[in-house]
């Protein structure tokens, strides 16, 4: 098979037997799928990975368990509403994510590090960038994947509630409106939590520390904010309550939805932000999402670790 090509000038020096053999390797000349394809693959891989699909049985346990834990209370609520023939669901669509925030935080804390920390630890990030994707593609794919996974986690119980409400023959227009408001709020929550989780996780190659750091940021800020709010409320300075709420992710979402999405606030005393303060809430939430995207971009400018 080997085809020998003689170099242009024959036998320059006596005794020099050096030759280059062409042994028939060919260049790839088929279609190249390119950057968009690589980005889509990375997105779907990361999204599947967030629920343990395509990974070991052990890593399926936790995400699936948390998913079930999110959906079961919704199913119970629906069952109760159907059985008692209540006029409305006992739980608002917008309230669900606030009540289940511990589960959502745990999900972010466990899946954000598994999405990015392992790439850092096994030094696969340089391999990704040897493909046609760039920093922005990697960041967007990971961000979008975790946000989608979170959206699935938080929207599924809403869907259960909605379907249940329709089966219970509750008012269609009313329920659809509530459902839509709930979806908008969990979409915001998914983006916000995914951004915060990924930024923290991308700074440590150790999964354990990533998990602890994410959960610390999410729960400690909430604990601090709700304690301060309770104290402010008890001291009679309830004007301060909405402003304190700006300092933790979940109260941020709570504030946005009680200002614009018709939710009742979970703040102590039930004083949610008004429209004016609500604008600040929306700006802070969007600013945080943009900031976490920017930080991720900066983090992955240099991929050596």
């Amino acid at each position: 098979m080997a085809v020998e090509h003689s170099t242009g000038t024959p036998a320059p020096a006596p005794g020099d037997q050096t030759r280059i053999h062409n042994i028939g390797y060919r260049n790839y000349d088929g279609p190249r799928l390119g950057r968009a394809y690589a980005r889509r693959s990375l997105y779907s891989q990361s999204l599947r990975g967030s629920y343990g699909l395509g990974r070991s049985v052990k890593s399926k346990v936790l995400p699936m368990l948390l998913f079930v834990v999110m959906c079961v209370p919704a199913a119970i609520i629906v069952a109760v509403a159907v059985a008692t023939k209540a006029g409305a669901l006992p739980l608002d669509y917008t309230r669900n994510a606030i009540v289940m925030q511990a589960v959502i935080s745990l999900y972010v804390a466990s899946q954000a590090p598994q999405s990015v920390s392992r790439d850092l630890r096994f030094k696969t990030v340089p391999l990704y960038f040897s493909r046609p994707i760039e920093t922005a593609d990697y960041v967007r794919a990971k961000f979008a994947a975790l946000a989608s996974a979170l959206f699935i986690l938080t929207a599924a119980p809403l869907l259960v509630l909605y379907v249940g409400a329709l089966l219970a023959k509750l008012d269609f227009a009313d329920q659809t409106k509530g459902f839509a408001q709930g979806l908008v709020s969990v979409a915001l929550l998914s983006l916000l939590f995914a951004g915060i989780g990924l930024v923290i996780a991308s700074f440590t190659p150790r999964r354990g520390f990533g998990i602890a750091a994410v959960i610390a940021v999410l729960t400690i800020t909430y604990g601090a904010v709700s304690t301060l709010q309770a104290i402010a409320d008890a001291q009679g300075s309830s004007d301060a309550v909405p402003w304190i709420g700006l300092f933790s992710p979940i109260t941020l979402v709570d504030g946005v939805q009680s200002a614009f999405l018709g939710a009742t606030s979970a703040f102590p005393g039930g004083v949610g932000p008004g429209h004016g303060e609500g604008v600040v809430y929306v700006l802070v939430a969007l600013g945080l999402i943009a900031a976490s995207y920017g930080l991720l971009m900066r983090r992955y400018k240099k991929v050596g670790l």
Partner: protein
Amino acid sequence: MYDPTVARLTYRALLGRRRALILGALPLLLIVISVAVRALAGADDQTASDLLGGLALATMVPLIGVIAGTGAIGPEIDDGSVVYLLSKPIKRPTIIFTKLIVAIAVTMVFSAVPTLIAGFILNGNGQQIAVAYTVAALVASIAYAALFLLLGTVSRHAVVFGLVYALVWEALFGSLVPGARTLSVQQWSLAVAQKVSGGDLVSSDVGLTTATVLLVAVTVLATWYAGQKLRSLTLAGEE
């Protein structure tokens, strides 16, 4: 039973590089909040008790316990470097005991000391509240460190399980199902704190005798079982 070299290595693994910053950020936040509360609301025993009980004992101590307890052994098992430690002529229970001492010390320094400082800032130790919660934090540190060290030797997902226990079981279930409170390190340590303060601001759902017995039993059993677990440790590859 105590090996200084193992202790030194564990301290370095726990506090080296930027990890001390994560551990230090939480107590700092607690103290900042206490200063803010004191400035806003003045000294108030009920507020101090709420803040120390809700934030310090319910959130901060378990979190630091998880980080220190699992961090003392988890990463080593994770990346396989524990075999170099295990191949040395040191008894496995000695390794566990040394790591437990280190984990307890780290948890105490980063949780009980700031609790005491925060308590003094909040109301100057009125009604013994600062001391009571500090004692609770000290007692809880021991139990949490032993429990989470055991988790670290048993599972690769120790941090997640530790957090599930600390947040879902103690915080969520504990507030919904009263029975769950009997099996909660937080309540056991509160029972000790109640005895110390003597007032009615600190209260627990568990009696002092039960709490003490359970605390000692959990700590001893967890340490013993972790030692046994380490004797027959199999290293698994990354999933």
